[in-house]
């Protein structure tokens, strides 16, 4: 049976590359996000690259009323449903500290919005097993760092959510994969100082696609971030609290 992918935050560079892999595989794709003009262009692009069908739909993490239509559209396709969450946003730590109210929106984008949608899709995913849920979290969620803990908080929540969801669905033949990207060369990181070992969105998407096929549980993108984060997670708190990064 063919696959249908609901791709949330489909305008992001990594989601685009992922969509193209799904299209080349002949899947149906529903591209969800806020920039309707851009999504329409992406949908046509996906069709020409081999997608069985491609549709653009509005999705705003902060407007839960837009969620039902997406779940309905996904289940209306006669194919195994799959969901990939690329949606998210990053407000710099300095901005969050200057405007604390901004954290609520960021947490909505990275945690509550996507989580609510996944919960809403749960019964349908269970009813039509065999699919996958891919959630893009971040290495920032592994441990709160002084330079980025506003963002890290939401991602940590999403990582925990995905972990629980994976356990919840393990007997229902729906696979849940957590993706933790390090630095990926996208609009979000363009021009930021101090980046190293930056992955291209195409390579990141390939790794995510392959990981989902192989039913991996948690993947770092690129893979060596696993090592970096293992070290960072094990730095004793009394030292870690003195670190500035």
């Amino acid at each position, binding site marked *: 049976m063919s696959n249908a992918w609901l791709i949330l935050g489909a305008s992001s560079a990594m989601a685009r590359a992922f969509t193209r892999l799904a299209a080349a595989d002949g899947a149906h794709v529903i591209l969800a996000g806020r920039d309707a003009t851009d999504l329409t262009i992406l949908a046509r692009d996906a069709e020409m690259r081999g997608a069985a069908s491609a549709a653009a739909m509005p999705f705003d993490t902060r407007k839960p009323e837009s969620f039902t239509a997406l779940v309905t559209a996904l289940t209306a396709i006669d194919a195994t449903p799959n969901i990939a969450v690329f949606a998210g946003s990053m407000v710099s730590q300095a901005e969050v500290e200057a405007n604390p109210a901004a954290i609520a929106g960021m947490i909505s984008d990275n945690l509550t919005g996507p989580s609510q949608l996944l919960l809403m899709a749960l019964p349908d995913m269970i009813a039509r097993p065999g699919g996958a849920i891919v959630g893009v979290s971040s290495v920032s969620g592994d441990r709160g760092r002084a330079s980025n803990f506003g963002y890290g908080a939401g991602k940590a929540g999403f990582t925990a959510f995905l972990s629980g969801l994976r356990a919840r669905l393990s007997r229902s033949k729906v696979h849940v994969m957590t993706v933790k990207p390090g630095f990926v060369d996208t609009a979000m990181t363009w*021009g930021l100082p101090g980046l190293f070992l930056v992955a291209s969105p195409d390579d990141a998407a390939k790794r995510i696609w392959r990981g989902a096929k192989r039913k991996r549980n948690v993947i770092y993108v690129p893979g060596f971030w696993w090592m970096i984060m293992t070290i960072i997670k094990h730095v004793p708190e009394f030292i870690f609290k003195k670190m500035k990064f």
Partner: protein
Amino acid sequence: MLYKDTIQSGWGRALRSKARIARPERRTALDELMSTAPAPAFGAARSYGDAALNADGALIDMSRLNRLLRFTPETGCLRAEAGVTLGELLAIFGPQGWMPAAMPGTAHVTLGGAIASDVHGKNHHAHGSFGQHVSSIRLMGADGKLRDISEVEHPELFRATIGGMGQTGVIVAAELRLIRCAGGRVELRKQRLPNLDAFLAAFHDNSADFSVGWIDATAKGTALGRGVLEEGHVIAGNFASPRNPRAVPFNMPGLTLSRPAVKAFNALYYHRASASGRMRKRPIGDMFFPLDGLAHWNRLYGKRGFHQFQCVLPQSTCDVMLPRLLEEIAGSGLASPLSVLKKLGSGRAGYMSFPMAGMTLAADFRANAKAVPLLGKLNRMVAEAGGRVYMAKDSTLDPGLIRAMYPEVDKYRAVLAEVDPTGVFTTDLARRLNLRGTDA
């Protein structure tokens, strides 16, 4: 962030300059950029010199605006955003029986860049230049407005844009006519030829769809112009899935391309090819994009980079001038491993397009103090022979030679004066060659 501050260089890396680069991922981001801070655009930055450079200014990287917009499978008519690469187009449409009509030596070139340089391929004698297969261009002007230009609408602007090195505005999208592609493999015949006369005769009699000659630019005397002629026909067969090529991991030390090393390499390459012309079946990419087989090959020239010289000589003077150019290059001892000789037809689509009916010669030179005077001399010899130097490769041309090489430059300048009076799209190349004609 909107801009990334970086030292930008072309593929040759001999010229470099500091710029602020924006890389929009959506049309709205491009619109915003162009309405607030219009700047010249570039694609893959695979031109060799300074076409994609703007010293202490801003640039727009178009590589992320790379979506396919419309395709008519019956006619092979394709509309796509400027950032899509020609390699991608071949990979997507090849299996459906279509391919871009002109393929330069690397698959990484973008659609926008291919138009701005009016690139040619190994089939130029039969199919003409890239721009001749472009039916319309969506161009964003200095005023931030979009215009659809073609041979019917704004024909002067259209002809100034094709081969126009990005000086008329930002190529956002274009429509092109693909040509039929028989399959994913090629029948490739390689034959070694003992000297230039044999080479020219072989090109003269050649009837292959695709042909290119690799010349040993270190050979002198009776062996002057010896090399290997490659002729190919596209045949049916599956498209090989792309694999990651081997890469040159870092800048190589100076000895890598020292004179004895180059001589030895060239001799080996020459003697490996069969004298009678052996036929082999290869994946299509091996013929189109031989240079992509080694990623980052520009690092072979070390951190100072290299200059590429590519000229075309008209049929009438090439018998006389081609041997003189080769003697000059061989005599200098500065030549690089592989130089390229190719026959060109008359096909060109823009005022500043490179091709003319004749022979084109390309050679690389490590960037050093001796290379620049040699290139200056070669450039003058080309001008004297009524030929032309390729701006997409050039890094040393004297602006005084532009008019002799590009007789339609005044029409081009007239268009530029009208569409971009303040010169917001001026790049390092345009400044160096005084393309706008504003310097006295």
